[in-house]
């Protein structure tokens, strides 16, 4: 579907859309409790060493300045025990510098401008040592592999004697999320109780983190994040500003706000680690894969081990009897990396799906056909059946809509004036997870419904998802439903990561609605002559804000009537959904997709443009087609950036990020993005969760960079294995 299609006409609009475009949705930095001071961060200008002196005299003399907080006067926090080798960064705890642009002080003043100016006057002296941020040679620098995965079959031997083989190395640079909303915290202490408005993807995880740091009871911390202006993983770990604002507020006895500036933001959180991957593929002459060898290394920091799974995709995507994977990390003197949209999977898929394309050319087999010949009907790693997998149908419908059959196999054969045209495709997959979650659903006498969960909505449309499920679950118009979220004091929810909020919180809401039906039946059953006496929960049908006994429409009673009859203002149910782990473990559970891309390349001047994308997705039940469409086109946009424009540039002499702003870090602009068509192939899946819905947020990105690079090869005959594919590389 494309944006104006009829398919989307009746799908609910974003319930928070109006507030957002009207400026009424209050983001973190817009909270302003009485008496609040403004904090402005000072960041280190070296990457490794120690602070030998910190001179705040000049800064403190400035009008409006209240205090400068650094490791010298910050309250000591409790840093939880961590495994050996891990020293998570806690801000302002010591004179040590672990990465460049590390926050080392905060200036508190009556106004933002005063704080910012004074921050520029804080003088720091360091003793500095040589830092390493060089992403070349990471295989050589790598730590021993932490968890060795046993080989499947005999990959090395088979590869050595295979009929057809390819071997290639792929590199991906550091990339940053650069969400619209900056990392920010407003911290308010009232007695021993702390309330923080914090940019976070998980209010309760964050609450636990701050409570532990201050050694206070978790119930004394409240974390509020009603609107999150994009995060993509950047706020999966608490940002340093959270503790800094909380410490500062404690010291000055006033609420404190700390907001990262755009320039500062690149080290407020981690980033997609830089990676190098080596792939070897072997097959017979018909393209049947006989061996996959996939070795990957990506960077971590000097103080922590961060590892994301790049090579897993090589074990799960294709049926291949002999597979070897290994993955290591190399320490660099940088901030610790962090999950960024489709972490691991998109990096791994860029390598595997490019390599498969290389093999297809070697074999002179259509790349789509090659994938079908190696289709995994069952999970090749575990042998388990898939709970559902309509990938073949994605291939079929996607290729048909795209017109894949018109593709010329040989490169440089399709032209449009000066433009060389290329078609490329790739496959994506993402594990469909689910976590336990809770939701409270309240039906009020005036016919409105309140849904509550601590979950956040970082932009994918969680508000709308929850409202939709409750509206459907209770049979009420969506306008009557309010979803309150983003508050750690609401019913428990996992953090928003890994595309699992719909399957987790959505399931809780669905089940809570069912439970509310039985609750209404139970209330009614207490009255004389109630048809719901001794009726099993399974026989109670909820529709149109009413209940009835299954098959007996004459028993229908509206919620409102039951409330009135019993003199109740409302009825609420708090429900915790569990995960059917035993049942799930019998299956392999994932969403899948196929991406088809047309590019046009003007070789003479180094320009590549994506012209057309068809994104076919099989992700179980689609809760809201509009939201789903939006997620999938968002994935494409992200993939265009990863393939063609995005790179965090680091000067290795200083281990310092040199383009930490939106002028230098090129995310795609509208002019880079063509019409994107999405197809949702229906999947009936009773195993994944009671909703039958799998995640969408990451999936849509996974295959895109490879599909684009493959299309560029089809256009030009040039295999570019180092992202992003910018004009300097195209023209070389």
């Amino acid at each position, binding site marked *: 579907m494309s944006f104006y299609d009829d398919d989307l006409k009746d799908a609910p609009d974003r319930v928070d859309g109006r507030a957002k475009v009207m400026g009424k949705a209050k983001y973190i930095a817009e909270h302003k409790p009485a008496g609040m001071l403004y904090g402005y961060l000072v960041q280190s*200008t070296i990457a490794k060493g120690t602070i030998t002196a910190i001179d705040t005299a000049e800064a403190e003399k400035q009008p409006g300045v209240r205090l400068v907080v650094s490791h010298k006067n910050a309250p000591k926090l409790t840093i939880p025990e961590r495994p050996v080798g891990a020293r998570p960064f806690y801000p302002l705890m010591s004179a040590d510098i672990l990465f460049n642009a590390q926050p080392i002080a905060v200036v508190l003043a009556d106004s933002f*401008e005063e704080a*910012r*100016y004074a921050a*520029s006057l804080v003088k720091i002296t360091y003793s500095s040592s040589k830092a390493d941020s060089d992403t070349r040679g990471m295989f050589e620098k790598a730590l021993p592999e932490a968890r060795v995965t046993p080989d499947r079959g005999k990959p090395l031997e088979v590869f050595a004697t295979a009929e057809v083989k390819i071997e290639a190395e792929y590199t991906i640079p550091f990339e940053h999320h650069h969400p619209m909303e900056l990392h920010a915290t407003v911290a308010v202490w009232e007695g021993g109780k702390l309330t923080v408005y914090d940019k976070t993807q998980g209010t309760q995880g964050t609450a636990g983190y701050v409570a532990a740091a201050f050694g206070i009871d978790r119930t004394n911390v409240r974390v509020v994040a009603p609107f999150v202006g994009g995060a993509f993983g950047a706020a999966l770990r608490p940002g340093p500003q959270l503790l800094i604002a909380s410490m500062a507020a404690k010291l000055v006895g006033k609420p404190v706000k700390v907001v990262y500036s755009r*320039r500062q933001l690149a080290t407020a959180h981690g980033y997609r680690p830089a990676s190098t991957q080596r792939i070897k593929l072997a097959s017979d002459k018909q393209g049947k894969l006989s061996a996959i060898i996939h070795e990957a290394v990506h960077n971590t920091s000097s103080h922590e081990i961060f590892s994301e799974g790049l090579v897993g995709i090589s074990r799960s995507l294709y049926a291949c009897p002999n597979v070897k994977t290994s993955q290591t990390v190399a320490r660099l003197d940088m901030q610790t990396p962090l999950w960024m949209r489709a972490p691991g999977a998109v990096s791994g898929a860029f390598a595997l799906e490019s390599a498969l394309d290389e093999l297809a050319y070697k074999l002179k087999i259509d790349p789509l056909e090659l994938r079908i010949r190696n289709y995994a009907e069952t999970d090749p790693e575990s042998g388990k059946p898939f709970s559902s997998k309509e990938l073949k149908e994605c291939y079929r419908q996607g290729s048909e809509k795209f017109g894949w059959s018109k593709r010329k196999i040989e490169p440089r054969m399709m032209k449009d004036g000066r433009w060389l045209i290329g078609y490329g495709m790739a496959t994506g997959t993402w594990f469909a997870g689910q976590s336990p979650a809770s939701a409270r659903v309240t039906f009020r006498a005036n016919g409105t419904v309140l849904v509550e969960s601590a979950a956040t909505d970082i932009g994918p449309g969680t508000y709308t998802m929850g409202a939709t499920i409750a509206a459907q679950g209770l049979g009420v118009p969506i306008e009557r439903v309010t979803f309150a979220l983003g508050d750690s004091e609401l019913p428990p929810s996992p953090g928003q990561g890994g595309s699992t909020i719909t399957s987790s919180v959505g399931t809780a809401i669905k089940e809570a609605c069912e439970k509310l039906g039985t609750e209404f039946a139970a209330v009614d059953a207490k009255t004389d002559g109630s048809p719901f006496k001794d009726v099993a929960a399974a026989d109670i049908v909820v529709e149109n804000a009413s209940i009835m006994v299954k098959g007996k429409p004459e028993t229908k009673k509206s919620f409102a009537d039951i409330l009135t009859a019993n003199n109740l203002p409302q009825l609420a149910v708090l429900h915790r959904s569990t995960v059917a782990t035993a049942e799930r473990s019998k299956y392999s559970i994932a969403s899948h997709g196929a991406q088809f891309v047309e590019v046009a390349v003007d070789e*003479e*001047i*180094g*320009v590549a*443009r994506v012209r057309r994308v068809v994104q076919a997705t099989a992700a179980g039940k689609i809760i809201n087609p509009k939201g789903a469409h939006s997620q999938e086109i968002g994935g494409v946009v992200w993939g265009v950036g990863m393939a*063609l*424009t995005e790179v965090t*540039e680091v*000067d290795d*002499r*200083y281990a*310092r990020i*040199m*383009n930490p*702003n939106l*002028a*230098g870090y*090129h995310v*795609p*602009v*509208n*002019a*880079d993005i063509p019409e994107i068509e999405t197809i949702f192939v229906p999947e009936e899946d009773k195993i994944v969760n009671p909703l039958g819905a799998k995640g969408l947020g990451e999936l849509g990105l996974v295959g895109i960079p490879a599909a684009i690079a493959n299309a560029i090869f089809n256009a030009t005959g040039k295999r570019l294995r180092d992202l992003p594919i*910018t*004009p*300097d*590389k195209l*023209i*070389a």
Partner: protein
Amino acid sequence: MKPFAYKRAIDTADAVRLGAENGSSFIAGGTNIVDLMKEDIASPTTLVDISRLDLKTITSTANGGVSIGALAKNTDTANHQRIRTSYPLLTKAILAGASPQIRNMATNGGNLMQRPRCTYFYDVSMPCNKRVKGSGCAAINGLNKYSAIFGWSDSCVAVNPSDMSVALMALDAVVKVREASGKIRTIRFADFHRLPMNTPDIETSLKKGELIVAIELPVPRFATNYQYLKLRDRASYAFALVSIAAAFELKNGVISDARIALGGVAHKPWRAIEAEAFLKGKRPSDENFANAGELAIRGAKPLSGNAYKIKLARNGVKRALTDALNMGGTVAK
């Protein structure tokens, strides 16, 4: 950002008087100076607001050219009927820059005065001769993908970021400047911006406090066969890796005069004089355009990370000339 005083100039005389004061700086559209202040690169103690001065009109000059007010907005200039029809190369160059929102704020004078975008210049923790004299140039042996291939010196390798200036260079513009004495001085565009030499902090030939009042263009030429080609890292809203303003006059199928200026390659817009001279008297053809491209890059000196710019410039010149030909509707041979 340092605290500063704000003053509004009531007329151009007032502006040059205030502009001459120690620590003062003009603000016009503010799209560059405010950024520089926020990043602590510029720290004026007084901002002299010139945005309300009566220098916004676009009028004909006595010799048949046009005078463009220094405070006319980029958007209004690009879309002005006279500019669109008589100097379309300028329209095209302006519209290739920044974003509509920024062009709505940006003034012509400010555009000419905008400072380089070198990433080290923008990071006050880094050595940079342009920002702090004698501190060294971090780019020359560092990240220099975006740096110069012409005219750079050991003290600075930054490039001028303006698109508008590239077209003005090609069109033989002159800049009218009000000196402190009240006198109006005329500066040839080619002399307006400077190479870095060993004073990279000095980017133009304006003296402290001098005010650009207008930009003048000669009698319209090059309005049929022209192209402004901007090559960049994404389709829009990025500074040029290399940009090319190319135009020529055709008489009986022969090029009677040609203009080629390059952006993104030097500390000032770079005129490809040899290539222009070569084209004079030639017929437009692939081969001649390719030769012009070769001549345009003669003398280019790459740094560790920007050799690609030489190819981009060479091919870009050829392409821009080809586009210019096609634009004019004359059949290529």
